[in-house]
């Protein structure tokens, strides 16, 4: 039966953990607060080590704060990260996504920096600055940078936050063997989608949407054991889904046979790292999604497809083919996920009667339980100091009154 305006606006008769106010997906002020309270305080993947394999290779990364970061491998083979900003007049130093340079020179006034962020040249330094400014005091702003499991390079612009090891904890243990191989990125693309970053990440935290994917309906969803897979929450908002061997014959006419070291053939694994990184293995393909929110209703998602370094050409071709068929920009599944999120945002436009979004499925934490989202929003609420079901405190105030 349909609902009246009042019924639509009434809070669901569910525990507060089982729904969120859709304004958390559309409100500009909440978005700005998320940047400050979440993204500026957590570890985020900036790139993979294979994207800067050689000494003096560099890579840029758009941090959600809006800052461009510059990552550069030094002569000592260490990767360091800095604000991609000249200390002189704030110009952006590096304009391209990747390259190689022993020194970084600003195009504007030719101030130069070495790969450790030290300023090494200021044209006509003493003539113009006397003893007021010297190179030693105007190095680049360094950002915490650590190599994590799998060779991913993580950054954190909060100098006071916990270490990467403390942040991740044991959340990646189910991919420990797979990520301990020597990996390289063979695919990279960005998708800028008109949606809130959390809506994209929600999609990676539940398999209830498998009904949308023709591929998934024919493969995993119809298999024995699908509904036995359990989501395991970890501290800091991370979550991991039990693995399963997927039967692909119904969709492709044949089963996948090429494995990923440490995994069985056709193994499916899924790990989500708060606030928006996802590791997915559909052996033989591995994909890692990362996100940079560009606004309340806009997100840039970076998709990386990974293979093993120096693997035989035939293996790489098969891994690439399986990756592209589903996950490439022309793949059959990825479009469906991205479209669903844009349609959610289209329907949620910040209007008069914001909807409630239900996260109420309970099935003993198994595949189609929505525990992945409930756990996410518990962490979100903790960091934001807001209740996702009542982000403005109006309902709570009304009850108190």
């Amino acid at each position, binding site marked *: 039966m349909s609902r009246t305006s009042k019924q639509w606006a009434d809070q669901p008769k569910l525990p507060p953990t089982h729904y969120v106010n859709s304004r958390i997906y559309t409100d500009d002020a909440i978005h700005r607060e998320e940047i400050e309270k979440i993204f500026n305080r957590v570890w985020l993947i900036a790139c993979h080590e294979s994207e800067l394999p050689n000494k003096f290779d560099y890579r840029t990364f758009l941090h959600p704060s809006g800052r461009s970061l510059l990552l550069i491998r030094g002569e000592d083979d260490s990767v360091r990260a800095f604000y991609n900003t000249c200390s002189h007049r704030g110009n952006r130093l590096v304009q391209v996504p990747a390259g190689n340079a022993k020194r970084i020179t600003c195009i504007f006034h030719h101030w130069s920096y070495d790969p450790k962020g030290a300023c090494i040249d200021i044209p006509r330094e003493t003539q113009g600055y006397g003893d007021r400014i010297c190179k030693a005091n105007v190095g680049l702003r360094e950002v915490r940078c650590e190599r994590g499991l799998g060779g991913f390079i993580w950054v954190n612009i909060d100098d006071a936050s916990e270490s990467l090891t403390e942040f991740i904890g044991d959340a990646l243990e189910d991919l420990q063997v797979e990520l301990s191989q020597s990996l390289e990125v063979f695919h*990279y693309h960005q998708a800028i989608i008109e949606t809130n970053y959390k809506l994209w990440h929600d999609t990676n935290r539940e398999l209830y949407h498998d009904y949308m994917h023709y591929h998934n309906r024919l493969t995993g969803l119809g298999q024995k054991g699908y509904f036995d897979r359990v989501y395991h929450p970890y501290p800091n908002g991370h979550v991991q889904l039990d693995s399963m061997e997927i039967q692909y014959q119904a969709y492709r006419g044949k089963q996948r046979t090429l494995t990923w070291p440490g995994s069985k053939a056709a193994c499916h694994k899924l790990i989500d790292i708060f606030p928006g990184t996802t590791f997915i293995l559909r052996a033989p393909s591995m994909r890692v999604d990362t996100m940079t929110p560009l606004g309340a209703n806009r997100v840039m998602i970076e998709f990386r497809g990974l293979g093993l370094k120096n693997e035989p050409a035939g293996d790489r071709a098969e891994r*690439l083919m399986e990756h592209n068929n589903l996950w490439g920009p022309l793949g059959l599944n990825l479009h469906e996920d991205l479209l669903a999120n844009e349609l959610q945002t289209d329907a949620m436009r910040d209007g008069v009667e914001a909807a409630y979004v239900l996260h109420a499925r309970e099935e003993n934490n198994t595949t189609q339980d929505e525990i992945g989202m409930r756990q996410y929003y518990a962490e979100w609420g903790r960091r934001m100091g807001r209740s996702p079901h009542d982000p403005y405190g109006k309902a709570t105030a009304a009850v108190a009154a």
Partner: protein
Amino acid sequence: MNADKEISDLVYKSCFMLDEMDFSGYLSLCAPDYRYRVVAYSPELRKDMVWQDVDKEAMQHHLELVPKHVREMVSVSRFPTVYLIEYEDGGRRAKVFSGMQLFKTKLDGGETRLYAVCRLNDVVDLSNGAPRLLSREVRMHTRQLGTGTQVPF
């Protein structure tokens, strides 16, 4: 009939067929050993990426699956322009270099936006009657495709 016109018509027809989602029509323009690749240079990785690489059988399987998948409600319009035709192998085949723009028009409201630009590097078989596509390499200029598409370029 003028060979240049026949070849150009082939390129244009292949794009019109895809606009109309006439997949069997598109495949009928392809030789039995057709190969289709989509490549893009990645400045992030500093190397070429392959986004799709299929033979005719795999292309046919892919196209059979497209209507079964959820898809954006838009029409896609392809605007190819044949720039250059080079004959080789005694006129038995030709290399065709074209540029192409694609636009998406929403069914709801009719707004049109530029979606992608690319180059088409085709090899056309002229040895057996009507020209047929022997291979197509789509070299993408655009690397950000929003929600993307499942239909070949």
